[in-house]
């Protein structure tokens, strides 16, 4: 299936879960990442069960500090 990850179209196997995608995409600080699926947030406790489907759009949102110090 084709899904869009961070604006890029990618090919993944059918039935891929959010947790599997996080691993495949080598998401840093994965414990704290926010996942948006088709403009909705995925609750953390659903990462392991939530399966992605053809045409889905996934975004990873990261904590970013920095600015002043």
């Amino acid at each position, binding site marked *: 299936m084709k899904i869009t990850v961070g604006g890029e179209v990618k090919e993944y196997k059918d039935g891929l879960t959010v947790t599997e995608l996080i691993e495949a995409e080598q998401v840093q600080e994965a414990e704290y990442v926010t996942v948006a699926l088709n403009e*909705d947030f995925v609750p953390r406790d659903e990462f392991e069960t939530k399966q992605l489907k053809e045409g889905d759009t996934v975004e990873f*949102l990261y*904590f*970013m*500090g*920095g*600015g*002043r*110090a």
Partner: protein
Amino acid sequence: MFSNEQLERYSRHIILKEVGVKGQKKLLEGKVLIIGAGGLGAPVAMYLAAAGVGTIGIVDADEVDLSNLQRQVIHTTSDVGKAKVQSAKETMEAINPDVKVITYREFVDSTNILDLIKDYDFIIDGTDNFPTKFLINDACVMAKKPFSHAGIIRFRGQLMTYVPGQGPCYRCVFKNPPPKDAVPTCKQAGVIGAMGGVIGSLQAMEAVKYLIGKGDLLTGKLLTYDALKMEFHTVKLPQHVKDCPICGENPTITELIDYEQAECDMK
């Protein structure tokens, strides 16, 4: 109503149909509070002063350090050791004497933030740590103040704009601060100097557009910038997060929270 000097100073604004005399007047009547006079706050303060934003407050408890100068372009070598707010004020007044700069040499916390923001039209989060970012968010939601959130680290930056009633807040997206030291700040991880310039200038742009009431703001969107890939990317966010503990339908946060700072952030 404008002096000849002002007409000349702001001529490149006034000639823009989106700004004009009306918009410039709105800028001169505008009040923006910048929290943090560092990598992000520096370009914001300089561009807003140059633009003629009439009242600019700037909050920072620190002094200028030599290691700041790689990115905090509002301060110069001779300012090392000086209070950041004082150094910033001097630069801003040198750029534009039309602007009233109000300095607050203090840390923001739950006891002073509502008082700090109450007289301002728009708030800029130019801070470097998550406890303060969440505090600014919660205070702005409670006080119904629009603000620009931004963060920078290494070669990456991001920003979003909160306007009451128009899309999600920072907490809708990020829920709670990460445990201290779990996610590095730029002091620990480093940041490329021009990143503050890119992202801070975008924050200044949001403030200006908000004040003149033109264009689309980054509400309901998170703009990310990756300098190594040289890519900007806009992530559309859910428009409404019903169970957000601060801006949702049944807020559970009714008092401001002082989260624990990572030790390395304390001076």
